[in-house]
Structures are given as C-alpha cells and as structure tokens.
C-alpha cells in the first residue's frame, strides 16, 4: 500500500506539473514578450468546457507571402514560421514565411493549407484565435463591434485590435482593445448606444 501511495505521489506531482508548466510558460511570455497589435473582428461562440469567448479573425492572416515549400502543390496542412514587424500605423504584419524558427526577432508558428500557382500563400492561421470573457459578455462584445443599422445606413464598427505579447514563438493575448478602450472597460461601463460615427477613431497604441 505504501508503494502505491508513493507511486500516486509521483503521479500527483506530474498532474500538477503539466498545468503549472503551461501557466509558467504563459506568465513568462506575458511579462517578457514583445507587444504587437493585431487588427481583429470578433465573433461570439462558446466552448462546452472552457466557457464563453470571442473568436478573433485577424487582418494579418491575409496577405501574399512566398511559401517556404513552394513547388509542392498538394492540398494539406503545412507549418511555417512567420517573421513579424509593424506597419506605419503600429499594427503587426507578417513580413516573411520561413521554414525554421529564426534565432533573432519576433516570430510565430503558423499553419496554412494551400499554395497558389505562383508559390504564394494568401491565407494562414495564427496560433491564437480566442479571447475568453465572462458568461454573457460575448454577445455584448459582438454587438459593440457590429455595424449599427438603426438610422437606415450602416455605420462602420469601432476598430478593434488584440494586444499580443510574443516571446520565442509563444504568444499571449493580454487585452482586446476596441476604439482605444479595453473591452473590459466597455463592459464595465457600457455605452448608452453604440457609437455610430466611429470611422475616424484612432487605432491602437
């Protein structure tokens, strides 16, 4: 019985170590990672175990990059590393896709499925895609970011971006910013009506 108890002790430590390792790794990225802003448009789904979140579609996922494995045309899941930079407005952009992780600079592992005839990738998938919110806040966020049709003509929704910390290929979303305010501030202090003329709102910082 003693042997079983000791064995279980080892199992218990391993069970605690896995989530703890996940936690420590992400905490490190959160504190030491470089900050990038990714333009996004959230929609609201749910996970049966992990609760409510907004799914984020990033503008940076669309573009034209030369595929590291250009020449192999077969359809299927491929992996590469995306080198990151910022544009003149301060938003993150992918400059190049490479086969191996670089020694310097910020990068992310990405996935893509098809290569165009010219050997280019036009759509890829970033390794982060969701932002968890308290139950009931998902639809509110989506509503906040949807175009307003109340006066007959659609208004442009507030610009949104995710604040992402990146370190050695690992990424953590630390905030979702909508029209210069954190989504949590919007949800604590909701607008009486969704701002209709938000087209000129400055984007991100």
């Amino acid at each position, binding site marked *: 019985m003693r042997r079983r108890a000791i064995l279980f002790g080892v199992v218990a430590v391993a069970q605690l170590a*896995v989530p703890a390792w*996940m936690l420590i790794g*992400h905490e490190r990225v959160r504190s030491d990672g470089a900050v990038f802003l990714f333009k996004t448009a959230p929609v609201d789904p749910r996970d049966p175990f992990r609760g409510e*979140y907004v799914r984020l579609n990033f503008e940076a996922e669309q573009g034209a990059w030369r595929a590291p494995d250009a020449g192999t045309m077969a359809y299927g899941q491929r992996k590469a590393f995306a080198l990151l930079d910022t544009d003149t407005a301060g938003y993150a952009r992918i400059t190049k896709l490479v086969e191996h992780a670089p020694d310097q600079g910020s990068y992310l592992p990405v996935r893509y499925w098809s290569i165009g005839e010219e050997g280019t990738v036009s759509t890829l998938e970033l390794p982060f895609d*969701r932002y968890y*919110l*308290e139950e009931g806040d998902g639809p509110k966020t989506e509503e906040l970011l949807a175009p307003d049709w109340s006066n007959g003509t659609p208004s442009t929704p507030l610009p949104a971006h995710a604040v992402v910390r990146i370190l050695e290929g690992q990424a953590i979303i630390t905030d979702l910013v909508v029209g210069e305010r954190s989504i949590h501030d919007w949800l604590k202090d909701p607008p009486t009506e969704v701002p209709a003329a938000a087209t000129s709102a400055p984007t991100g910082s």
Partner: protein
Amino acid sequence: MSGPRITQVLPELVREGIISAAQAELIRVRYGTDTERGGGRLLLVFAILGSLLVGLGILLIIAHNWDDLSRSTRTVLAFLPVLLGQGLVLYGLVRRPDVVAWREGSAVLLACGLCACVSLIAQIHHIGGGLDGYLLTCSLLILPLLYLPGSFCVALIYLAMITWQAWIVRFEHFSASDRPWWFLLLLLAALPYYLRQGRQRGTSTVFWWLSLFMALSVGIGSQLFYVDWTHAHALGVVALAGVFTLVPWLHGVSGSRTWPWVLVGGATMLITFCVFSFRPIWEGMDAEERADWPLIAAYTAVGIIAYLLSLRVRRPFEQWPYPEGLALFLISFLVGIFSPALAAILVNIALLVLGVFTVVHGTERGSLRRMNLGLTILSATIFMRFFDSDLNFVVRGLLFIGVGCGFLFMNLRMVRQRNKQDHAA
C-alpha cells in the same frame, strides 16, 4: 420476497456455533462481493454520482469565467479542485484501500478537477486551439487514474474522451486530412487496464460496461483513418464487426462478460447489410478511390484470420451466425463489381440466412429475446423490399398479416414450451 444474503447471516451462524469464525471468513471471501466489502452497492452509486455532479458543477462554475477575480486568485482557484481530488485519492489509497466507493468517488472528482484546471488556465491566458487539443491534454492527465487508484468510472470517461477527440481530429478540422494518431497511443495505454479487469472481474457488471465502451471506442476509432468513404469501406466495417462477434470465443476466459462486443459487432453488421440490401446502393459502386485499400485489406485480413482461429473452438454458425456475415458480404461484394442486381439479391439472402439462424438458435435455447431478434431481421428484410419493389397494397397487407401471425405463433409456441418444461420440473 428474497431472504437475507448468506454474508448477512454469518455472524448469527457463528454465534449459534453452527460454523466457526474461520469458516465464516472463508464464506465471506467466497460470496462477499467487492462492493459489499466496500460498504454496499448503493453507497458506490451515490459516491460516483455525487462526485460526478460536484466535478461537473466545478467545471460549469469555472466556465462562467469570473472576470472580477484577479489573475492570481483565478490561478490559485484552478489548482484547488486538483489538490482536493488528489488529497481524497491519497486518503482512499492509504486509509480505505478496499472501499470501492472511496476509490471511484475520489478518482472521478480528481478527473473533473484536472479538466477544470486546464480550462481555467486556458481562460486566464486566452489559450487558443480547438476542443480536440483540450480533450487530448485532459485524457493524458487522467490516464494514470486508470491504474492508480484504478477507477473504472474514470476509464469510461477516458474512453469516451479519446474517441471524441479522434472524431474531432478526423471530421472537424479544416483540412479533414488529419488522422487521429494520438487515439491509437491512448487506446493502447488503456488496454492493460481493460485486460487486467477482464482477468480479475470479468464476470462483473463493471466489466460489461467497460467492454461496451471499449467496443464502441475501438469500433468508431478504427473507422477514422480512411481518406474517403466508398463502397469498399463497408468491407472493412463488416470484417471488424465479424471480429467483434467472435471476441467471446477468442479471449479464452470462460464466463467473462464480453457480450457488448457481440452487441456492437452484430448491430453494425446488420445495419450494413440492411443498407446494402438496396439495389441502387450497388449501382453507385465506386472503386476509383484506392488510397484506403491497404487499410481495408488489413481489416479484411484480420477478419479472416480471426475467423479461421475461431474454428478451433467454434463450429460454423454456432451460437450466433454473425461471424459468417463477413464471408457472405465478401461474396456479395465481389459479385457486385459485375452485377449490382445479383449482389443486392445475395445480401437479401444473407440477411434471411442470418435471420433464420438467429430464430433457430433462439428456439433451441428457449431465448425469447434472440428468437424475436431473428424474426425482426426476417420481417425487416421483407418490409425493406417495399421501398424498391412495386407490390400492390393487397400483397403488402397480406405480408404484414403473415409476418404478424408468424411473430404471434412463434412466441406463443415458445411460451407454451417453457410452461411445459416448468411443469415437468
């Protein structure tokens, strides 16, 4: 009214000097069930149900995602259910090693706590990834609980989780080209536990449930490695279904409750036969996609080898006719390449053969259930032909009456036979 269990009257028998204390202990060991030693079946059920409800409650509360709580508070909260579960499992292992209720209840609570912990960490750091990744992490974390403390409830949860994960990888990924390779490893990891349970508690209800989950897991999982689905894939399905129906003959442990394998295999085989009894199915036969043929050939080879091995301990059509279904389907499939109409007729004949043999086995063994299953196969085969034949209403009506009379006659006959045997006894 049932009398007291033998183990309940033992103290009285010892007190009256009818048996010695040593003899009473021997009888208790022989007739006392595992659950009885552990404090009763009812206690076990409530322990499992209670732990499951508490565990699921924790998961739901965590799914609410408390934004008002700080990150550090939520981090501490993430580990609390795990530590609580681990404490209870350890207490059960050290202080209550023989109490099944403790073992099962604490293990279920720990399994739910681990799932909740991973959920909360994902929430705190907005970790992306699909449900399959989450299920994979949780499966790996709860896997040790199958062996320490050795919980059958966690084993059922584990088998359900790995099958769900495999399903998501195969069907819900964007590319749909992924294969659930992890499923194979995770299933192999659970196999020693299943085999040990078969040796130690093969005759228990617990093992019946384990067999059911194992059969469903292996059955579903084995079909998730194809590139596409064509007619040829039905061969692989029928071959493995045939193997399933042979499991009670192949494992060599008498009295072991492996009946769920036959149940899953037989049902799969009958459904496949019913689908292929329609002529249009054969007419659309497509043999263009050949990427899966090695896998289909492997499954068919396994089916044939298992059947040949079973011939050492089983005569053809003995007990149930489903193992022979593979040969019948194989013949129909080969004929179907040249003549779809003839293949459909052969499958119908095969269904009738399966039905007749099931009725015969049912009547021979006095099993109403099995006889009625055979009659259902026969009548379903007849009724299915209504859809692809132009029979008029009078003929259809007469067929219904005929089948109904057949059911009544056979059931009455068996009930009378049983009554006669009871009177004779």
